Structure formats: C-alpha cells, structure tokens
C-alpha cells in the first residue's frame, strides 16, 4: 500500500484485482451449479 498515493492508483489496483475475481466468478458459477445439482435424479 506504500506505493499508492492517488485515488487513480488505488482504483487501478483494486479494479485489477476485481476483474480477475470476476473471471473466476464467471467460471465458478456453472461449476458450482453442477455440484449443487449433482445428486438430483435424471
């Protein structure tokens, strides 16, 4: 955090992480859905 001096740098840092999390989330949803419904019949 020492190298963050401006709002711009802060937003860049946090948004970088958030965009990676978004990609992970998009991958996680279908996988978890399959897990959630894995034991259902049919």
């Amino acid at each position, binding site marked *: 955090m020492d190298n963050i001096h401006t709002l711009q740098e802060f937003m860049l840092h946090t*948004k970088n992480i958030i*965009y990676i999390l978004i990609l992970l989330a*998009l991958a996680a949803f279908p996988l978890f859905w399959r897990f959630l419904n894995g034991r259902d019949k049919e």
Partner: protein
Amino acid sequence: MTSPQTTTGPGRLLTPFNLVAGIIVVFGMIITILRFTGGLASVTNLSDDNPWGLWIGFDLLVGVALAAGGYVTSAAVYIFGLKRFHAAVRPAILTGFLGYALVVLALHYDVGRPWRLPYPFVVSAGTTSLLFEVAACVALYLTVLFIEFSPAALEWLGLKRARHLVTRLTLVLTILGVVLSTLHQSSLGALFLIVPAKLHPLWYTPYLPIYFFITSTIAGLSMVICESALSHRYFHGKMDAAHLSGNRDLTLGFGKAASWVLLGYFVIKVIGIAADNQWHYLGTGFGAWYLVELLGFVALPAFMYAVGVREKNITIIRWTAAWTVLGIVVNRFNVCLVAFNWHLPAEQRYFPHWMEIGISVFIVTLGILVFRFIVTRMPILHAHPDYDAH
C-alpha cells in the same frame, strides 16, 4: 440464374435494391481508402473539441442498443420460459451478432490505430476506465453471440455433433449474454459520468447507466418487432408455419412488454430530473428538446403500444416499434452529440461530414446484405428439417 417465379429471392441480381446497395458499397470502399490514407481529418468533421462524432454516436451507441434484441429474446425464451416465442430467437440472435460485428468494424474506422484494439487486454489494462469495461464486454459478448448463432450455421453445414455440443450450452450462454449485456449497455451510458462539465445537466445524471440499460431492453423488444415485420414482408418465402403463425403472437407479447418497460423508464426519467433538481432547465431551449424526447419518444410510444395491444392491432404496434427505435437513436444522439459540449459556442460544435454519414450507411448496408445472405441459406426463419424446433 434468372428464374421468373422468384421475384424477391436471391435469384435476380439486378434488382433496384442490389443496385443501390452496390453503389453504397462502392462509395464505402472509396471513403475507406481515404480514411486509411489521409487520416480522420480527410473524411470527418472531428476536432479537438469534438473528439467523438457520428461513428461513436451512431455506430457504437445506437448500434449496440439496437443489437439488444438478441439477449432480450433469448432471455425471454430460455430463462423466463416463454417458449411460444422460440421461433424469434434465431433471427434475434443473428441480428444481434451482425450488429455487434458491425459495431466492431465501425470502431476500426474511428480509432487511430485499430490493430491495437486488443491492447487493453493483452498489453496494458486500464481498468479504471468505463471504456475498458465496454471493450471487454463487447469482445466477450460478440464471442457469445457467435457461439449462440453457430447452431444455424452448423445445421446448414450438416455438422450434427458440433451442433449438439453447442446447444447443450444454451442456458449458460444465455445467462452470460444477459450479464454481459447488462454490463456494457449500462457502461456505455456510464462513459459520460466523467463529464458533468460537458454534458447538459438534463442529460447528465448519475442514473445514466441505468437509463442506458433500460433503453437497451426497450430497443431490443422494438427491434425484434420491426425485424419480424420486415422479415415477414421480404423473406416470407423463407418462413415456415411456426414463424408465420408466431409472428402475431410475438408482436403482441413484445409490444406489451415494451409498453410496460417504457412506462417504468418514463417514471425513472422524471425522477432523475427531480433528484438533481433540474426542473428549471425544462424552460430553456434544451429543455424543450428534452421534453420532445421524454414525451414524444418515451410517453407517446408507451401509450401507443398499449393501444395497439388492447386493440390487438398489429399495424399500430409495428409503427410504434419503428417510432421507439427512432427514439433510441434520438436519445443516443442527444447524449453523445447534441447535449454534449452544449457550453461551446455554435461554431465550435460538431456536425457530421457527409463522408462520415457515408461510412455509417455503408456499414448498415453491409449488415443488411450479410443478413440476407444468411437467412436465404441457413435455417433462421424456419426450422431445419432434421431438427425439431426445441
């Protein structure tokens, strides 16, 4: 190739439509060459004060809004379970896909170094920019639409296995499509959040992203109605019984939905004025124009759709749909061109060069030509005989 019985089909080459389209394409090519040899200065009226013109206002903002039919229709059918509109999915997905493809094509004309368009993702990600969000979603959504459209092409090519694989992804793709559309449709409005000093206060509001998203669903619904009307007229021979009989039902159903959403949009628009206390601007020249947009292109179509639905009058609904689409164009132009830079003196304002208009017309024409090529060959307006409709 000239067979007398097919007057509207692809059989005849020298129809008036083909002639006009041909001329437009030739002109488009010439302007394209000028653009990529002389720079933007040689074909546009863009300036340091007006960096965005028609190619952003129409080709990007209007293009993306009017291509919303894909996600609206597929969501209605696959998520909300309105199976009776199933026949409308394929044409809507196709126009959506073509729409986005053309938006991306148009951007190649507008940006300075088009080959760098992937840079945000592979070289230097400016994640603080709303434009990054737009670019990422448009790129992803174009891919999603391509995959959603591919079953038609795969059926045409007879690749049954691949087609089967893709159709199993339908639900995932539909949900992803709605997520991406929500994001970039709203982000296109959010692009202007950074310019409170340049956009007229009646159009500048923190609700801009919400307005853009809601209007995209209105645009999507209205475009599907218009497209079905046009297809009905010009590709009648290509439509099977399901598409022909579903047309009326679709027009009524989507018309009802559009009317209802327009009412909601009207409400939040009025609240937007109240939230920032902009009432006094309504008495100015810009205010009058704002009222034209609000009453003429939001309240009026909401009412006319309702009348059409109550009377079961397909003609009224179709004309209202066309009017609503025009209203979307007006709204996007207002935000990007008319109310933007409103503080500048008249001589510093922007008006498109005829060659800018030429490129926009050229790109729309390309879209129509490709659409015609595809629907006359692939199972879009009719089900493929080897597969049932569902």
